[in-house]
């Protein structure tokens, strides 16, 4: 493309043809740039995602303390990542969406219904419920069924303390958690990807295990909405989807709860959902995981590294069938 006229003629075009040529060159330059911007811009619009901003949440927690018996000493995932990379389908299926859209969730006033196989069913305000127990930190690994993991400093109370306070009857064998069902506050529920409300559950002995935890905060701050405010479950040896968020009801039952992901796709997600590198998801391997913040993958550990604490809960069970 030799559209550029020679040096001397650029000052004073000698003839019509040169003027035309120069005009043509300019026009081409403009059109090329326009095409680059148009094509590149639309492709970027279709495929690029803006990252969400880190939330500001009220401090509620205490000062730093020595590690407890259940804490991991591994490097903690950044607060930025913990609060902007979330699976919370009530606010959309993309992991950046909860951080951007969860502002519509109103977490005060909030009540939780405690019922089922209990001595006395009751509805309790979240602040009252929180005041029943001393709040503590728990630094846990969290392994998502999709093959990534984090280390999160939760803040809350052991689930066992709550179960005992509910006074189970002799018929209570399981615990069922139900999340908020309100499309006005949770716009993702209008998208019909899963059945709402989200329901999760545990066997009662799993719920009574000292690792099972109810979180109201992260790193000493109140839970940001996208992380499941104001109350969520944390079961560190199970895949992350067991950790139901924004809980409004806790029910003790005699039969196994029908949980959301297991209902939606029984061949891929089970009731137990214990982290197990040997049992692959039908479509991907569970042998390795990417710790958020790291580039390459690391091996996944049985029960997410909590085998010593929890493996005995499942002795005699075929964990391939009960996945």
């Amino acid at each position, binding site marked *: *493309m030799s559209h550029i006229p020679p040096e001397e003629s650029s000052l004073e075009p000698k003839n019509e043809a040169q003027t035309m040529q120069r005009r*043509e060159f300019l026009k*081409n*330059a403009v*059109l*090329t*740039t*326009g*095409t*680059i*911007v*148009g*094509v*590149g*811009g639309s*492709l*970027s619009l*279709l*495929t*690029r*995602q803006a*990252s969400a901003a880190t939330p500001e949440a009220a401090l509620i927690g205490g000062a730093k303390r020595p590690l407890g018996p259940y804490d991991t000493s591994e490097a903690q*995932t*950044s607060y*930025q*990542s913990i609060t*902007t*990379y979330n699976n919370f*389908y009530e606010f959309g*299926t993309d*992991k*950046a969406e909860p951080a951007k859209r969860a502002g519509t969730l109103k977490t005060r006033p909030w009540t939780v219904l405690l019922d089922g196989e209990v001595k006395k069913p009751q509805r309790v305000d979240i602040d009252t419920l929180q005041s029943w127990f001393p709040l503590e930190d728990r630094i846990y690994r969290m392994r998502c069924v*999709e093959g*990534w993991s984090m280390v999160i400093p939760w803040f809350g109370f052991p689930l066992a303390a709550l179960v005992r306070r509910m006074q189970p009857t002799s018929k209570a064998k399981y615990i069922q958690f139900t999340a908020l069902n309100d499309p006005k506050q949770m716009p993702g529920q209008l*998208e019909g*990807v*899963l059945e709402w409300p989200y329901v999760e559950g545990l066997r009662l002995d799993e719920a009574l295990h000292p690792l099972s935890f109810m979180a109201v905060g992260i790193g000493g701050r109140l839970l940001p909405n996208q992380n499941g405010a104001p109350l969520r479950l944390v079961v560190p040896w199970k895949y992350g989807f067991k950790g139901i968020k924004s809980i409004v009801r806790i029910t003790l039952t005699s039969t196994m709860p029908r949980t959301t992901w297991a209902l*939606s*796709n029984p061949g891929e997600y089970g009731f137990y959902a214990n982290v197990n590198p040997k049992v*692959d998801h039908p*479509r*991907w*391997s569970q042998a390795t995981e*990417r710790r*958020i*913040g790291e*580039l*390459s*993958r690391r091996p996944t550990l049985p029960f997410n590294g909590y085998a010593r604490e929890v493996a005995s809960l499942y002795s005699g069970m075929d964990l391939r069938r009960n996945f």
Partner: protein
Amino acid sequence: MTPQLESVSKPSKPIKASKLSWLGPGVVLGGLLPLVVMIWDAYSGLLGANPVQRATHQTGLLATILLLASLACTPLRQTLGWTWPARVRKALGLLAFTYAFLHMLIYFVIDHGLSLSVIVEDILKRPFITVGFAAVVLMIPLAITSSKGMVRKLGFVRWQGLHRLVYLAAGLAALHFIWQTKKDLREPLLYAGILGVLLLTRVVWNLRKKKGRPAAAPASRSS
């Protein structure tokens, strides 16, 4: 083979060579712009908490969109009579291949550190990887034979036969998109739907052509 060759190398409506000379470079550079932006984002930490996954998703989507765009060129001529898209079809196809290859490299090299056992297991055992890999493999001969010289060397009929593989590659890519999804199928189904419409347009067009004008002029045969 030579008579048909004429029909590819020259568009049916002659356009002055210089008239659209900006289009090709514009599309190629514009197509590479998202890659530049992505590298910039990676460098400045804007790819989010899981940058490798974000890069995988972005390159996968770019490959899919560009592949669909390259497949839209012929239906656009058939339905609207536009001839200019055909001029950038090759560029779009090569860009799609570039992003698909990058997408595969990110997964095998960064994600799995080029561990051969993992790669082989993934390709054999995970259907969504199997079909994705097949799509990339199918696109390799197409990329290699995309030049005018290659059309001449193979002869147009054989070249065209070979390049029909792009439909298979696009179908596999759509399947890959659907199968890699955990639950929300709306986006992959949208792309699969667009692919369906594009393929249907060709089928309907070819049927109508066969019926209406049994002896179609060779000039309108470049598909």
